[in-house]
């Protein structure tokens, strides 16, 4: 702020809102082709937006009963109000709902912390290593005076969070092993990892879920039963691992050969070379791709509907069967879509930001 400083260069003037709007309109209407396209777009908007707006806002019912909803032509958001907490907690015992609520709070705090690059160190890993089991204990109870709650009663957004977090937490380390195995010099190891990755990626996730739900119990000794949620997690983890493994393999292949040779010439063993030289670089450059893959995997948590695990989507779908609230599927699906959209869109914006930051020469 001293007077001796040279006067700051005038910042390049940001085009004002009016100027930008003018450019937009100008670009829309330069030339006959663009005018035709713009008119078609405007016609489409005029055809779609007012009826949707009327349905969703003007003629919608915001509170009341199904009866008052049926009197109005618009959307029945009262239904969503009624089912909101059910869609978050499912059939979890009412007086214990603070437990899934605090589990979700832990989850949100951990996820937010994980998005901040300053926190990317071993403390974050340690935090997850503590938080993940803590979340499970909190939900299941049976210790520390918490009443035991069967996984069968878990539901709603909490289960979606559990499946996504555990799938990633267990699948990610496995994916690194699979990716390394696929590039291993040991023939049998390479074949084994390739077979697992290709078989899992070659079949639909729901067939893996069917396998875990129906086939897996047959493979275990008689009398041994594994909780259904654990079996779902097993399938989902395998799926996560196979897809992430291909992303990680991309990173491993992108490493210049010199990195491998330099590590070898230092006399590092295979695991030292991977842990200290190769993996830190390969994993970092693929983080945007990992986030993108995770968005797909997160959307796929909805597939547990086929074996009757009550995740967020399935819980909402089940509430369609409430005899007091028959006939509002569109509202329920729009609400579910909005929730998934907000979460996935946030992740994809985050991944785009990382991609910009990681681009060589970005700083």
């Amino acid at each position, binding site marked *: 702020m001293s007077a001796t400083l040279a006067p700051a260069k005038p910042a390049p003037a940001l085009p004002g809102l009016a100027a930008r709007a003018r450019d937009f309109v100008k670009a829309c209407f330069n030339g006959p082709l663009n005018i035709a396209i713009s008119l078609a777009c405007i016609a*489409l908007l005029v055809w779609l937006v007012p009826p949707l707006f009327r349905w969703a806002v003007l003629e919608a019912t915001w509170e009341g009963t199904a009866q008052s909803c049926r009197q109005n032509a618009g959307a029945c958001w009262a239904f969503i109000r009624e089912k909101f907490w059910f869609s978050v907690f499912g059939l979890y015992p009412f007086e214990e709902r603070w437990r899934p609520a605090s589990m979700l709070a832990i989850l949100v705090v951990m996820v937010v912390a994980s998005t901040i690059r300053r926190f990317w160190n071993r403390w974050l890993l340690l935090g997850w290593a503590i938080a993940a089991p803590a979340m499970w204990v909190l939900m299941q109870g049976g210790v520390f005076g918490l009443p035991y709650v069967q996984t069968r009663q878990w539901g709603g957004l909490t289960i979606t969070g559990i499946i996504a977090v555990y799938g990633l937490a267990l699948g990610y380390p496995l994916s690194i092993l699979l990716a390394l195995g696929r590039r291993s010099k040991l023939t*049998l190891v390479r074949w084994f990892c390739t077979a697992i990755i290709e*078989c899992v990626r070659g079949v639909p996730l729901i*067939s893996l879920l069917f396998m875990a739900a129906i*086939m897996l119990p*047959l493979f275990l000794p*008689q009398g041994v039963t594994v909780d259904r949620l654990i079996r779902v997690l097993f399938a989902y983890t395998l799926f996560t691992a196979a897809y992430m493994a291909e992303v990680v393999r991309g990173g491993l292949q992108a490493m210049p050969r010199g990195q491998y040779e330099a590590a070898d010439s230092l006399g590092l063993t295979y695991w030292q070379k991977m842990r200290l030289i190769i993996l830190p670089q390969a994993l970092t450059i693929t983080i945007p791709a990992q986030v993108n893959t995770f968005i797909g995997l997160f959307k796929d948590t*909805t597939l547990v509907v086929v074996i009757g695990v009550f995740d967020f989507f399935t819980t909402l779908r089940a509430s369609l069967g409430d005899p007091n609230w028959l006939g509002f599927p569109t509202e329920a*699906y729009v609400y579910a879509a909005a929730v998934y959209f907000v979460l996935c869109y946030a992740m*994809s914006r985050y991944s785009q930001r990382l991609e910009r930051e990681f681009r060589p020469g970005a700083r």
Partner: protein
Amino acid sequence: MSSTSTTSAGMPAAKPLIPLPSPTTLRGLMWQALLAAAVVLLGWWFYNNMLANMAARGLQFGFGFLGRSAGIPIGEAIIPYTPADTYQRALTVGLLNTLRVAVAGIALATILGIALGLARLSSNPLLRALTGGYIEVIRNTPLVLQLVFWHAIILQLPSVRQALNPLPGVFLSQRGLKLPVFLADEALASALLALLAAAILWIGLLRREAARQAATGERRSTLLPGLALLVALPLLSAALVGAPAWDWPELAGFNFQGGVTLSPEFFALLLGLVIYTAAFIAEIVRAGIQSVHKGQWEAARALGLPGGRIMRLVILPQALRVIIPPLTSQYLNLTKNSSLAVVIGYPDLVSVSNTSINQTGQAVEVISIFMAVYLIISLVTSLLMNLYNRAVALKER
């Protein structure tokens, strides 16, 4: 990596009679042996457990049940099917239903995806924004949700008597979509043959003109004669054999007569898969075209090529190299995603398999069958696409 390669040069390498493996190799062999033993033991354990479990439920492992009568009612089948048919037949009907929706979905999603991808690159900001909004919304919501959404929308459509009629001969009601089709008769066969012949002649014409251009440098457009062929030959066929007749849907009483019906389930599944996959294909197409360096456009323009030919001769061949591999995985995804049919009740392979498991209890066999089928479809698709990819790949020396 064996130590024999380090012997001094010039001397014929004095190899030991039995080459001793290095400690690293030995350790590798040991790990592989351990892995193989673990896999074999685990498989054997699973197999024995499975036999014991099935015996306890009065079941026997084997594929004999495929020959038994299934008793599964299937709403739509391409091949003749009754509930009295065997499980094998029922599963085949399911597989054909999967392939039907996958093939139609891939074709439509490709067309819509390319159109959207080009719209995303348009110079018109309004069109760009609209397409961008579509792509973001569709890509960031789960497919299952979209499928049940479309299914719910279709079931809320007016009844058959008040069916929407957006185009002549096209009816949209809660019973699905009604479309007019050509009657399969000689006139249609003859017209199709005429079209094929016209296409072959056009290709021949193109070849001749290309040879001519190579020889003389003179270029003539084949557009007009080609189009003339495409119109004239079918007209000729119509004049000789008769025009192919339409089977036009008509409202008769409480239902439609004639035409072809897409059931609400098939229609919802196809719609959902196409809209979802097209959004991903659009992004792939956009990225592919943007990956071509700006200098390529400028160089092509400097050569005086017109816009259409810049795209076809310079940009597309390079963009395709980037587009084909991710496009392949989208096709595979669409095929695998068609298994979500089970959620809205379209009788695809997984849906029929699921019913078969509930009825017979032969879970391992049925699940193995449909997993193997999907694996084969995946492998064949990637093989075909890899062949195509090799054809368009960069040829380096």
